[in-house]
């Protein structure tokens, strides 16, 4: 049990001057590129500790363990953090399979599993439902943060119906929850027009290339290409499209759209004409934000992390989600119990001023809606950067 003072309520992992948060993430192995997220989060906590003395006088300690993207490791390490290190809550754990693996455990122990770093819909949609394996466990201590993949895909559907109603759509998607969620969102969003999709080709993460799929998509007569692919596949795919002498309109998912990647694709020979995506976070490489206060803050924060690359989109993601976490802790005030923190995070968020998100994006949860971020803005590539198009599109309440 944790220490408790007579005046304020606390739980395990909280002392009068500290809060311990835990995290598991891939810092080695196939998904090691994501590992920097935790470093950025830590940088933000360090910044809060140094400049504000922590939250309500409590410094945030953040213990990060490397699970190598293997769910079995995640289980062990999460148990270690909960039972041995006695963390107050798990924050921003990475990976759909990995976080699914520990969801039952954390909920049965009533340890908050906050703002998991995946856009898998289940972490928002299935909030409060009983576990599929053991009905006595309710999933009411878990929640995601970023826009669900399905929601994002619905925005594309809206955009295409509005602007290119006669398009023939070809889809290249990664054959896992990530790619499948996107595909489902697109189909749902197109609704009765789902027949616009003339071909959908999948690839496995172990594929050497997606050339064969792209050749097939081109041959299918598609004039619009959706890439529901991770950056490592997106960039070569963009180049391949050019090499095939193909010039479809391209929709790129938000995971792959940071300017660094676009730059690499361009350098490697991709034509990059007519590319559309969406965004909800400020892109650190976008000159538009050069004098933006949020971006200035990000740069100050990220200086606390020696291994972090300022331009890496994952890092500003980390800072943004850490901002929300601190926001929740601030709101919890002296009532630092797990139950209270979870209830704020899952049902009481209304964050309009997260400085790292695009202007207007609200992080919001209510007792009936557990999708923290649902707004995104369509962007198009202008050859050197992204241009914001129109206004934010909100998919709140559409995913059921």
């Amino acid at each position: 049990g944790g220490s408790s003072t007579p005046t304020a309520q606390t739980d395990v992992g909280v002392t009068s001057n500290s809060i311990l948060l835990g995290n598991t993430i891939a810092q080695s192995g196939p998904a090691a590129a994501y590992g920097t997220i935790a470093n950025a989060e830590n940088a933000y906590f360090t910044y809060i500790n140094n400049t504000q003395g922590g939250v309500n006088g409590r410094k945030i300690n953040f213990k990060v363990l490397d699970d190598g993207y293997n769910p079995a490791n995640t289980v062990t390490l999460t148990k270690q953090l909960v039972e041995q290190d006695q963390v107050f809550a798990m924050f921003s754990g990475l990976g759909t399979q990995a976080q699914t693996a520990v969801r039952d455990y954390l909920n049965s122990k009533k340890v908050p599993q906050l703002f998991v770093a995946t856009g898998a819909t289940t972490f928002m949609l299935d909030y409060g439902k009983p576990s599929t394996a053991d009905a006595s466990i309710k999933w009411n201590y878990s929640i995601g943060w970023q826009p669900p993949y399905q929601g994002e895909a619905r925005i594309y559907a809206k955009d295409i119906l509005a602007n290119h109603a006669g398009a023939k759509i070809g889809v290249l998607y990664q054959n896992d929850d990530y790619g499948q969620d996107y595909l489902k969102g697109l189909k749902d969003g197109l609704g009765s027009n789902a027949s616009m999709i003339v071909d959908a080709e999948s690839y496995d993460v172990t594929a050497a290339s997606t050339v064969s799929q792209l050749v097939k998509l081109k041959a299918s007569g598609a004039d619009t290409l959706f890439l529901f692919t991770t950056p490592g596949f997106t960039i070569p795919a963009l180049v391949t499209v050019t090499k095939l002498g193909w010039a479809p309109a391209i929709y790129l998912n938000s995971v792959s759209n940071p300017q660094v990647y676009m730059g690499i694709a361009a350098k490697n020979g991709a034509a990059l004409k007519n590319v559309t995506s969406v965004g909800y976070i400020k892109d650190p490489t976008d000159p538009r934000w050069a004098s933006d206060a949020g971006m200035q803050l990000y740069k100050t924060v990220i200086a606390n992390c020696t291994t972090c690359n300022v331009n890496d989109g994952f890092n500003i993601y980390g800072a943004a989600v850490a901002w929300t976490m601190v926001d929740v802790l601030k709101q919890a005030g002296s009532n630092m119990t797990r139950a209270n923190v979870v209830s704020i995070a899952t049902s009481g968020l209304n964050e309009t001023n997260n400085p790292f998100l695009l202007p207007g994006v609200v992080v919001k949860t209510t007792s009936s809606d557990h999708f923290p971020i649902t707004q995104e803005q369509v962007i198009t590539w202008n050859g050197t950067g992204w241009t914001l198009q129109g206004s934010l599109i909100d998919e709140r309440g559409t995913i059921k």
Partner: protein
Amino acid sequence: MQELLQQVVSGIATGGIFASLALALVLIYNAMGLVNFAQGEMAMLATFVALALIDHGMNYWIAFPVTLVIAFAGGIAIERVVIRPVERAPILTLVIVTLGLATLINGLAGFIFGYVPRAFPSPFPVQTVNILGALASYQDLGVIAVSAVVLLAIYLLLQHTTVGLTMRAAAHHPEASRLLGVRVSWMLALGWGLASAVGSVSGIMVAPILLLQPNMMQTIIIYAFAAAVLGGIESPIGAVVGGVIVGVTVNLAGVYLPFVGGDLQLAVALAIIVGVLVLKPNGLFGRPSVRRV
């Protein structure tokens, strides 16, 4: 028809990538009697070195040979420090050492260069040529051409020079070779150096296509294994032909075999490995090994 042709041409291009790494595997097999599981990682590291040189303002055509030399020296250093102590150990020990090496180099590259993918310049333009209606880019053709040149060099070296002969001798019969005055230890080091240099050529060629990042070679190496096994692991020509066949097969199987689909490409490579080994264990170009009692 048009699509089929394009699939084949694209498959050949991808096969060039497999072939170039498979060549390095074949070389190390001939020079060590060993399959080097760290081959891909060594190539990746060398490519990072090349990029660092280019980023520091060195001309591509100077950086290329300099990287080769560095990779050669690195290969020798690895042999001296890591392989030499286990030189006489059973094959399993060596396999594990190279697996350890792969892990180590991968982690090291991540630590030094980070996991964010990098652009890598290519000497060949992405412009395409039309071959009977199918498009191939100069870049892909360039990879194949370079592989062919490397192949020729390796073939001549192994089969028609004394150094090649002593390298093969040292690899397969160290004790007997010593008694013939072969400096076995240096031959093995030389083999590692050469294989490392050939691997770096492969890395430099494919990095513009694959994206340079620490995990760049992780799955490619399996396809390269498949290519080397298909061609016959000691045959350089086999590596190239095997690479092309694997590239084309993987492409076509994904499109024309419904149960394979796009997402079981690697399983096709596995099937090739197992199938070849069972039906024709020495590959297409391998010499049958003779068993005498």
